[in-house]
């Protein structure tokens, strides 16, 4: 089975999101899209400021898990399509690292499917973020 690749090197450019939205103009059964975007925060921890997050993953396992999440969300919600993109490598503060995009005939379905997908990605995908501090040093990101 060919697994869909969700990973891209570096940040997700806004133009990539626009292209993805534009591709749905031919799907005239869609009434609502919901998009979640994760953006890297310049958090300050004990006087040190995060300037970027560096993402790594157990890629093969992450793609298998994402396939499983996708299947279960398509089974649960009447969505027309779902797209997921996650950064690997360095993403600067203010840049986008996660893009989850669901579409459906009805808005509530798109919103609920997107929200559930984001939660599952954060909890279940073997991906790790290393928060790099300005100057030097780092800490490992912890998801809440």
């Amino acid at each position, binding site marked *: 089975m060919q697994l869909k690749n969700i990973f891209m090197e570096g940040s997700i450019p806004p133009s990539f999101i626009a292209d993805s939205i534009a591709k749905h103009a031919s799907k005239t059964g869609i009434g609502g899209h919901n998009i979640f975007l*994760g953006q890297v925060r310049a958090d300050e921890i004990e006087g040190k400021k995060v300037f970027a997050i560096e*993402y*790594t*993953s*157990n890629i*093969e*396992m*992450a793609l*298998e898990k994402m396939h499983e999440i996708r299947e279960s969300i398509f089974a649960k919600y009447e969505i027309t399509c779902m797209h997921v993109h*996650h950064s690997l490598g360095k993403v600067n503060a203010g840049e986008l*690292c*996660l893009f989850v995009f669901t579409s459906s005939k009805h808005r509530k379905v798109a919103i609920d499917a997107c929200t559930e997908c*984001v939660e599952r*990605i*954060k*909890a*279940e*995908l*073997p*991906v*790790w*973020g*290393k928060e790099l501090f300005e100057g030097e040093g780092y800490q*490992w*990101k*912890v*998801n809440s």
Partner: protein
Amino acid sequence: MALEVQFFGQLTDKTGKSTVQLNHATNLIQLKEILFKEFPLLKESKFVIAINNKMATDTSEIPEHAVIALMPPFSGG
């Protein structure tokens, strides 16, 4: 060289490397004993283990030439 063990995320800080080759271990209890001896800092770390990309429990058997992944709590997104 019968097993490959991979470390991810903060575990690479505890081991100083991202992968090691080990002789065979029959199950995860035995594997962890070997790893904890070589990398004592792992003992205090939280992680889950996958064998050949499948989540495993302490009593899971380890096939020949398995790839074992030690993964700390996920923090994607």
